[in-house]
């Protein structure tokens, strides 16, 4: 087990290095940092001095090595736009995005899995048809449209829920949470539905397809032949066998929810990392973009590792031999 984790972390290193290279390349090719920092009036001597200070006169590999070393310590430099350390900016914004993503993922799982099981078991009931039709809407409507429609209905017409922002938050240590106030929870509802709806329908359809497959297997027939209750057959034997693909997709989707909360955060003016990123893109704030890129890559790598570990927990066949994981 330990050897497996170590080997996966070693495999992750080249991935992170590659992403670091791309991040680093942005500095060189997206705008000229020297020109940005010097502004309008400068002498050639000032320019040369700045280039030396920034280390831009050094060979490529030395520069890249420095970037990687700094990045490994969480040091991404100053934001061009806000003149504050990039890491501080991201840490400030992370709780908003993580809470939103977590709520959306929880919604997707807690509603999507039971709906998938139901539609798998009762293929022809009218409720299954309603769910499937609903899931088509979820899959095909773009996120921003869903967000705007929700705002129109629940904020503008009904006036029940806030249309933007996080509401009141409480600071616990360095973490600002919206879970502890009524206003914070109310503010979470619309954005998390917007962000989670696609995932919900995806999980539902996946669970349904897997259930249909598993219910045809011999071991389910045999479980029935042993006279086990429907509950034990459906939720014990069948559902557990659908979990491996569901975990894979959910893991990847959780990464996607965090990384691509950008649209939802923009629609709801949610003060998270996505909003920070989109504002940085507008201002060509390369240090923030580079840091965001690295962070999201690290996030995907971590989630994949957790997903692989969950396989081990779910499927005993993968435990033998301590192989390279994967399914």
């Amino acid at each position, binding site marked *: 087990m330990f050897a497996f984790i170590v080997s996966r972390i070693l495999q992750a290193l080249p991935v992170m290095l590659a992403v670091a290279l791309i991040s680093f390349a942005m500095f060189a090719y997206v705008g000229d940092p020297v020109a940005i920092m010097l502004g309008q009036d400068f002498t050639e001597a000032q320019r040369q001095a700045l280039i030396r200070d920034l280390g831009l006169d050094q060979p490529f590999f030395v520069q890249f090595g420095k970037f990687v070393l700094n990045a490994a310590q969480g040091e991404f430099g100053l934001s061009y736009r806000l003149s504050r350390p990039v890491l501080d900016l991201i840490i400030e914004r992370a709780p908003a995005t993580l809470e939103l993503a977590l709520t959306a993922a929880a919604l997707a799982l807690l509603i999507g899995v039971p709906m998938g099981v139901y539609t798998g078991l009762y293929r022809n009931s009218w409720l299954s048809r309603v769910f499937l039709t609903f899931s088509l809407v979820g899959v095909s409507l773009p996120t921003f449209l869903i967000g705007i429609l929700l705002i129109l209905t629940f904020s503008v017409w009904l006036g029940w829920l806030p249309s933007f922002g996080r509401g009141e938050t409480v600071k616990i240590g360095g973490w600002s949470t919206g879970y502890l106030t009524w206003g914070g929870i109310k503010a979470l509802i619309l954005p998390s539905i917007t962000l989670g709806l696609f995932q919900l329908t995806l999980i539902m359809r996946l669970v349904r397809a897997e259930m249909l497959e598993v219910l045809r*297997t*011999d*071991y389910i*027939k*045999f*479980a*029935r*032949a*042993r*006279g*086990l*209750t*429907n509950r*034990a057959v459906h939720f*014990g*034997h069948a559902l*557990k*066998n659908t979990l491996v693909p569901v975990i894979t997709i959910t893991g990847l989707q959780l990464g996607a929810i965090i990384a691509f909360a950008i649209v939802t955060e923009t629609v709801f003016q949610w003060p998270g990392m996505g909003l920070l990123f989109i504002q940085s893109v507008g201002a060509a704030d390369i240090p923030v973009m580079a840091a965001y890129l690295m962070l999201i890559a690290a996030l995907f790598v971590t989630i994949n590792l957790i997903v692989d570990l969950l396989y081990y927990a*779910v*499927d*005993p*066949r993968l435990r*033998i031999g301590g192989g390279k994981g994967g399914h």
Partner: protein
Amino acid sequence: MSNTLPLLEVRNLRVEFPTRRGILTALDDVSFDIHPGEVLGVVGESGAGKSMTGAAIIGLLEPPGRIAGGSISLGGRRIDNLPAKEMRTVRGREIGAIFQDPLTTLNPLYTVGRQLVETMTTHLPLNPAEARRKAVEWLELVGIPAAAQRIDSYPHEFSGGMRQRVVIALALCAEPKLIVADEPTTALDVSIQAQVIALLKRLAREKGTAMMLVTHDMGVIAETADRVAVMYAGRIAEIGAVRQVVKHPAHPYTIGLMGSIPPISHRMPRLLQIEGAMPRLSSIPRGCAYNPRCPRVFDRCRQDRPDLLDAGDTRAACWLYDGADKDAAHAAAESGYTEVRRG
């Protein structure tokens, strides 16, 4: 044996599959009994309806298949029309089932111990600790070495033969009165087959469990069964004591079937071959289903369907036995193939 009340009575069982192109009759007018402690072998070609009969008895026909007529009674109580909930208490508790492929019948994600315990606690008044103790006993009984350690192993940690032993333990652990074993050895190595059959036979005898043994292996039947039913195109062609059916088959189909098995005692220049193939369910001929392939066919066979008739030692669905002289009919039935063999 025949003076006791039958444990299982199947009467005029008819199973249909509604399809887009009309209703297919998969089982037609199937009747037989199984007495307590008796082993009934069911043989036939693929698609003859052997497994379907087993599935109908345990109430697990694949939809859209359905029982369209007849009755199935266990210990005098009809079980073919029970509500799903009551049928669940029959399955496992009163009728155990063994399937063909032990590699796919066990849930890969649960230990064998857990699968045994859940089966027993579902049907018997046992707490989990007692059930676990019994689970170890069952694993020992079916010949799993070091059962106390292996109980927490997962199915994939056992070989095919060992898995089928676990399946047998699972089928028997709630002590049912009847076991429906659907090709229990077909998927196993030949060397393992004999062991598993011997185990099944021994356990059934020790526990007094009756068994319906579905197989296409006549060797297994001859060795294990008390009586045998030969099925053809969804109907029973012949039924009787296994010795009689093997040594003196009455139905031309059974005769052909037996003649196509190479004898081990002497060399045979050529095995008997039945011309043609079993009809598909959608095109079962009128009259006797075997008539297009039968060397002794006559007009009546193409018009009317024979019921099971007294054929001396066995009962056969063949018009040859409609008369009083059973011996002459036997001779007639056999003569059909002698010509084929010479030609």
